[in-house]
């Protein structure tokens, strides 16, 4: 199948002017400004097939938002190719724009002082959505996200969660084929996060929409994304299925135990790498196949109040990929 999104050696360099602090600095900068560059995306490539739900992960400043901005045509790439729905996003053709939507969790597109329904009607006009389709989509979406009774409330009076739901509705009214979501669950409570997750999952399944989602909440990625792309410092670190990532890095497990007596960390280290220590509670990493053996030894040697063995969290795994990478560099 032909990919619906494809980027190749994509690079984005931001330029900005160095500003020296203080009044003297300001005066100096009137005459001479030093131009600095920062390479936010350093040549990444990937292809995404129609219907995929991709998690785009990385620490702060990794270049996620920058990449999404290039995919949606806000930014011109410095170099490299970007192709979405057979269009060059930065050409900003209306036929292209009618087929995708961008939702940014930290920015709202709804009119602040007006009820959400007015913003929906504006989108209806902008995207030239026929009356019947508009009504159908609005009914369906507001039913699914449970916002029927807040459509007439001024947006600024809504809670963050309600507002985010309205943002999603606004973005989906024109039935986009491709959806870019930049931290859509940021700042929401667990219940709202769940509601939005469930909704996105269903939307992807039922409509076959292609979705790229960035999030710092691993729950989002775990529940929603079959595929994970990890970037750091503008470079691709991992691109593959969520499961493979999990298995590849789950050749080890985490054992967490609380001892009855105070013990020197040195005595614990011999069993495995200490991930964390808090008072008498230790968390260590051990090879999967040695789980029984090592826990047996611990129980034998110390007086243990409590012991738990668990699979490693995706957060930990990603953290490890990052630290491994740093050590290699």
């Amino acid at each position, binding site marked *: 199948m032909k990919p619906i999104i494809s980027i190749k050696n994509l690079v984005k360099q931001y330029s900005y002017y160095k500003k020296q602090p203080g009044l003297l600095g300001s005066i100096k900068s009137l005459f001479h400004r030093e131009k600095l560059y920062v390479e936010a995306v350093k040549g990444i490539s990937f292809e995404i097939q129609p219907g995929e739900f991709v998690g785009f992960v990385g620490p702060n400043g990794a270049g996620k*938002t920058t990449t999404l901005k290039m995919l949606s*045509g*806000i930014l011109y790439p410095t170099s490299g190719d970007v192709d979405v729905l057979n269009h060059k996003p930065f050409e900003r053709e209306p036929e292209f724009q009618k087929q995708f939507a*961008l939702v*940014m969790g930290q920015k709202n597109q709804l009119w602040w002082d007006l009820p959400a329904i007015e913003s929906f009607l504006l989108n209806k*006009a*902008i*995207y*030239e959505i026929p009356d019947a389709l508009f009504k159908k989509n609005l009914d369906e979406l507001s039913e699914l996200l449970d916002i029927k009774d807040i459509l007439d409330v001024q947006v600024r009076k809504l809670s963050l969660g309600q507002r985010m739901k309205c943002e999603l509705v606004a973005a989906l009214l024109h039935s986009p084929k491709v959806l870019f979501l930049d931290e859509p669950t940021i700042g929401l409570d667990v219940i709202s996060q769940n509601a939005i997750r469930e909704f996105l999952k269903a939307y992807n399944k039922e409509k076959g929409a292609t979705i790229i989602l960035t999030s710092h909440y691993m729950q989002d990625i775990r529940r929603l994304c079959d595929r994970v792309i990890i970037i750091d410092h503008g470079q691709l670190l991992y691109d593959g299925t969520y499961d493979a990532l999990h298995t590849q890095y789950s050749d080890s497990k985490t054992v967490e135990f609380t001892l009855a007596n105070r013990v020197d960390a040195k005595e614990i280290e011999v069993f495995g790498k200490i991930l964390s220590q808090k008072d008498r509670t230790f968390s260590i990493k051990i090879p999967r196949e040695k789980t029984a053996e090592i826990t047996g030894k611990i129980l034998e040697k110390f007086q243990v109040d409590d012991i738990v063995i668990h699979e490693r969290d995706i957060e930990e795994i990603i953290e490890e990929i990052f630290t491994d990478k740093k050590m290699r560099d």
Partner: protein
Amino acid sequence: MNKFTTYIKIGVLDALEMRFQLLYWLYVNMAPIIMMTYLWSHLYAQKGEIGGYSLNMMVTYYLVTRLINRIISTYAEERIAKDIKEGRLNQYITRPIDYMTYKFGERLGIRAVNLIIVIPIYMILMLILREYLIFNFDSITIIFLSINFFLSLILFFFLAFMIGMMAFFMVETHALNGLKDQVINLMSGYLFPLTLLPEKLQEIFSYLPFTYFYNFPMEVYFQRLTTIQIYQGLGIQCVWIIVFYLIAQLIWQQGTKNYEGIGI
């Protein structure tokens, strides 16, 4: 057209949310006009005429130019600069919407609400100052004036749009905006009738767009121009609209190319 009327509607609704500004408008519109009338009547006590303007013409000039200002200004520059600086432009350039058309519609809506509030204020003012005013309800004059206002509105918007777009290239656009206002005030006849200036200067000004904002419509109102001269004036305005449109498009293209989608 459906799109455009929706843009206007959004502006109307947004402006209606800010009704509380009514008192402010009341003050802004009434106080200076009454004070100026008072001042002029003292100045004219010794002289019958200043630069070909009688007291009544001067008061009328002052009042009507303030009203024209209410009709043709869009005050779009700050909002446009803010959209760019705060990254709100992102949501326009990712949707199938022409930002300039959209802003124009939205500003029309907002200004229409403002006008509906302002017009009664001016009717009261005219009632208060009726002895000082010259009225002209000639229908041809009114048609010419309507065309002139409409063209001025577009020109004013393009100017605002260009100044606002400077936010693509610089952090602070306030100074530039202030400069633009100064230029307009001096060359348009907003501060005083341009007939008070030397002929040579008046001729130069007549090729610039600014005089058509205030001085020209007042000359039309006082029926001091021939029909040919009126057509000529409106024609020059049209030429400037085309020039401004082209420049605005150029700035827009350059700006959005360099735009870095600030924020998040």
